[in-house]
């Protein structure tokens, strides 16, 4: 601690990104940009039905040898994906990379076709005839858990991956609480939609005798582990490389069937192969997230002080358990984080991870928090309505106050620091609530209805070992490592196992290193995203990279600094205690030797080194874990003003304020960017994005004409106000921030819409709040009146 400055280019400085120039000149290198000599392209035959037995696959004579099915892969020793959870009662799914006799969702890969161009591979795919004997379909999670529902996995007793029960009985509170409000709340199935889809280039490197999988991933080391399991190939024989990656948001945080297939085909044909996920594949066959259903009740006293929360929650996890996060992470997280940033004593939550005939869900930015916040924050507003107070007042009534920090909540989450109520007070002031209330009272000339909504959350980020060990999934984060190496010319190379796909780590990790060593940013090079070049890491997910890998970079650089000081002191004939490392030089009074000179000594003039020099030299691998295994807790209050057009159901966002505490910011510009981007995705969740399925399990959106993501005119010019409470447990006091922006918008916008619709007596509780949803709610209320 105590190393934070706001000037210069170290921690806290708003410096421009080292990544920008190549990307602005179109000289980045994404998977789809890579062409290898003799490379073939892959296209998949995908299931057009949601649930069926495959009774036959006919491959035209002329394409035998260029079309492969599970029979080929299985004969080659390929194993299905198994993403098991150690939680008691978890049912295991086996997902073959190509369907093994049965398909369980529309878009599931059935066969793969190899050709010189993608167009020709698609031609071949169109010529393959698959005979499907259709089976009854589970298209809705609530129906899938009813007795007699068709089974997605034949040998299971039901369609539930896992049921969890958190908390105890709250019958006493339920019987006596002065206020009781209940809601049915739902969030839609969404697609993650990074602008770049997934992509893979696979080849066998004959020189190093390794399978090289260049893939658009957030976690190369985890993909390697999964590939090794499925291909039955030693990890040492596999190298996974992530080049420039065009956004991830969770979608690139898993082992994909297509990666296994591409790897196997490359080895089988001894040819480089490429698969590029197109937008239709992305929307239809994959990348699904966020489908929650809540039955929730809040108990409170007459002031709106929460006495207890009781909920049942269902998550539609789709047909298979994804590697490494499993099918239960989302629902299990619901149980543990539903209480949000609030202090109350009584809690019971039962969750179900439901298996259906839809694509598996993947943790999407914020994971379960977006749904949880959507549910909990509606309940706060419902309580406020019941007790006749402003929603922000009821939030203040219940938020953990700063004097109780650090605080262990009802589910034993350890909130590290901050002033949650102050974030609400600042949001109320910044959105200028009084002005909106006056305008609401006066009414709008155009007949639209004004509403203001708030949502507060706290977010556990940079998860520790215990919680993942508890879930018992294939990946448990431990110590994060970084390598730091002074180059012979006095520059610095950093190697980290996390992967930057928009997070600006090439810049921000350099800032961390600069803070410790004083080496200028332009002489610091980050190497990341390559199992062959970097230390093991679970990768970039869960808002962890700056806390974990940033901490590791600082730790490694500190060790380097000590070694530099010792050599520098020797060169100046000073005692090690008499020197300091400042501005890239070791100084002893007026004398100084630069890091460049010390590097020259180590590499090219070793005869000048002290006899007791550390033989590790100017290269260090250091591990890091924060002082607490509970992760960091960043938090925010979002405030939004909307105008709802009750005639056509459209919502315009008039103002949007985020009051955010991410602890110490390494680069405030980058932090702001993460928040802006997160809010935009949250606006999509709130108002636009829904992957609809019909009763037969057919996806009803397959293009950007049907699946709407917010554009320039749909996203507000968000205003951000920072609170800066350093985490007591991390290097520099940083907290994870990557996901936060996406968590609160659906809740805040929903509360604002309901505030606007209050005069009509209308409440909406399901996201997205499309014109149709709003108009139907208005019509139903009119019909009931």
């Amino acid at each position, binding site marked *: 601690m105590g190393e934070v400055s706001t000037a210069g280019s170290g921690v806290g400085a708003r410096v421009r990104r080292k990544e920008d120039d190549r990307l602005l000149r179109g000289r980045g290198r994404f998977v789809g940009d890579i062409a290898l000599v003799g490379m073939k392209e892959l296209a998949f035959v995908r299931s057009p039905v949601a649930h069926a037995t495959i009774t036959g696959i006919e491959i035209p004579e002329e394409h035998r040898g260029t079309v492969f099915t599970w029979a080929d892969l299985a004969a080659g020793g390929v194993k299905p994906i198994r993403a098991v959870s150690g939680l008691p009662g978890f049912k295991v799914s086996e997902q073959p990379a190509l369907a093994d006799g049965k398909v369980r969702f529309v878009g599931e890969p059935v066969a793969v076709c190899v050709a010189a*161009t*993608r*167009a020709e591979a*698609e*031609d071949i795919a*169109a010529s393959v005839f698959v005979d499907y004997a259709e089976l009854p379909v589970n298209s809705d999670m609530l129906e899938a858990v009813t007795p007699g529902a068709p089974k997605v996995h034949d040998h299971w007793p039901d369609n539930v991956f896992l049921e969890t029960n958190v908390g105890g009985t709250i019958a006493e509170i339920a019987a006596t609480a002065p206020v009781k409000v209940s809601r049915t709340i739902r969030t839609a199935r969404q697609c993650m939609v990074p602008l770049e889809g997934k992509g893979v280039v696979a080849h066998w490197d004959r020189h190093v005798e390794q399978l090289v999988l260049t893939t658009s991933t957030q976690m190369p080391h985890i993909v390697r582990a999964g590939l090794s399991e499925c291909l039955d190939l030693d990890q040492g024989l596999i190298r996974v490389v992530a080049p420039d990656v065009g956004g991830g948001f969770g979608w690139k945080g898993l082992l994909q069937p297509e990666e296994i297939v591409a790897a196997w085909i490359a080895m089988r044909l001894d040819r480089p192969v490429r698969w590029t996920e*197109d*937008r*239709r*594949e992305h929307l239809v066959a994959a990348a699904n997230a966020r489908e929650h259903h809540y039955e929730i009740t809040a108990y409170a006293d007459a002031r709106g002080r929460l006495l207890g929360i009781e909920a049942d929650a269902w998550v539609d996890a789709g047909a298979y358990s994804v590697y490494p996060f499993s099918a239960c992470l989302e629902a299990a997280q619901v149980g543990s984080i539903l209480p949000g940033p609030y202090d109350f004593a009584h809690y019971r939550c039962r969750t179900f991870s439901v298996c259906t005939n839809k694509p598996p869900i993947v943790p999407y930015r914020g994971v379960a928090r977006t749904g949880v916040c959507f549910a909990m924050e509606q309940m706060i507003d419902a309580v406020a309505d019941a007790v006749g107070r402003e929603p922000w007042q009821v939030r203040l009534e219940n938020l953990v106050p700063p004097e109780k920090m650090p605080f262990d909540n009802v589910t034993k989450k350890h909130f590290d620091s901050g002033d949650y109520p102050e974030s609400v007070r600042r949001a109320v002031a910044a959105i200028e609530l009084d002005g909106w209330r006056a305008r609401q009272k006066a009414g709008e000339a155009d007949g639209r209805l004004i509403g203001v909504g708030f949502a507060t959350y706290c977010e556990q980020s940079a998860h520790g070992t215990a919680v993942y060990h508890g879930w018992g999934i294939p990946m448990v984060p431990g110590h994060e490592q970084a390598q730091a190496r002074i180059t012979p010319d006095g520059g610095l190379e950093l190697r980290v196992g996390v992967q930057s796909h928009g997070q600006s780590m090439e810049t921000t990790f350099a800032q961390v290193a600069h803070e410790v060593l004083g080496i200028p940013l332009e002489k610091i090079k980050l190497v990341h995203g390559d199992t062959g070049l970097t230390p093991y890491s679970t990768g970039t997910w869960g808002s962890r990279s700056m806390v974990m890998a940033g901490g590791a970079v600082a730790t490694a650089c500190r060790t380097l600094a000590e070694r530099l000081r010792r050599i520098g002191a020797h060169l100046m004939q000073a005692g090690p205690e008499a020197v300091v490392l400042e501005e890239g030089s070791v100084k002893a009074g007026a004398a100084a030797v630069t890091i460049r000179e010390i590097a020259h000594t180590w590499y090219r003039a070793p005869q000048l080194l002290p006899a007791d020099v550390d033989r590790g030299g100017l290269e260090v691998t250091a591990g890091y874990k924060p002082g607490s295994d509970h992760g960091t807790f960043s938090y925010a209050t979002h405030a939004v003003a909307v105008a709802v057009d009750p*005639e*056509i*159901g*459209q919502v315009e966002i008039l103002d949007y304020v985020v009051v955010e505490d991410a602890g110490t910011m390494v680069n405030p510009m980058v932090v702001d960017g993460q928040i802006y981007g997160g809010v935009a995705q949250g606006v999509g969740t709130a108002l*636009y994005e829904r992957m609809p399925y019909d009763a037969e399990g057919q996806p009803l959106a397959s*293009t950007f*004409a049907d699946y*709407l993501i*917010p*554009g*320039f*005119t*749909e996203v507000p010019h968000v205003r951000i106000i920072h609170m800066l409470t350093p985490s007591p447990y991390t290097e520099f006091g940083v907290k994870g921030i990557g996901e936060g922006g996406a968590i609160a918008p659906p809740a805040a916008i929903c509360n604002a819409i309901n505030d606007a619709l209050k005069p009509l007596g209308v409440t909406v509780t399901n996201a997205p709040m*499309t*014109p*149709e949803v709003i*108009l*139907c709610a208005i*019509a139903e209320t009119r019909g009931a009146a």
Partner: protein
Amino acid sequence: MKAVDFDYAQPATLDAALELLAREDVMVRPVAGSQSLGPMLNLRLAQPELLVDITRIAELRTIRQEGDRLVIGACVTHARLEDGDYPDVTRGVLPSVAAVIAYRAVRNRGTIGGSLAHADPAADWVNVLTALGADVVIAGTGGRRSVPMTDFILGVFETALQPGEIVAEIHVPALSDRARWGYYKVCRKTGEFSHATGAVLIDPARGVQRCVAGATSGKPVVIDGPALFADGCTEAAMAAHLAGSPAADDPIALRTHTVALKRAIAQVMS
């Protein structure tokens, strides 16, 4: 997501194009800017064997005034109509409508004739040209014929074009200087397809009172303007006029179309 293998021709004259389009031995489709057909080809929703690109035919790219009509070649782009390098007899209607079609990059390639031939009910020109009372000149190997917009659009992606025929010209009548125009689209996003379109032209000098409800589940619904105005032009009257039409498939749709029409009419009245 790549198109099926197709052949391609880019004839320089209309006659040469019509000759190719008349071929019966292959599945042939005309293409202009490819802004609607392009996605359908990539998605393999359209699988032609031969594409006939008509954009190099000079006469289809002209705009000229003929008496009180503006004659717009089928391959004139939306961007050109937006930028307005022609005698605009519609007193601003054409440029203002063109400016809100999709996005500029699409408008630079997409054409007015292509849009009509595609006949998406949500398309701007489908509804606007109906409200303006335009005629479509269709060319085929058998010669030319002129069809009023109300008879040209037959339904969703359905037109009066026969196999081998293309849209050659659009004839737009001049508005009088007293004409008033209202246009309102209900879109969830900028540039996105309309879910309900209201287009209204009041031109007393020419005795025109035309109201169109577009982006329906069928062809544009042309409402008897004088009757509507005689009924007081209330919301209830509008809903009554739309009842039973493709704008009234369900209560929500009827409501949204009524509002779009109401707001277009309000622009005329203001």
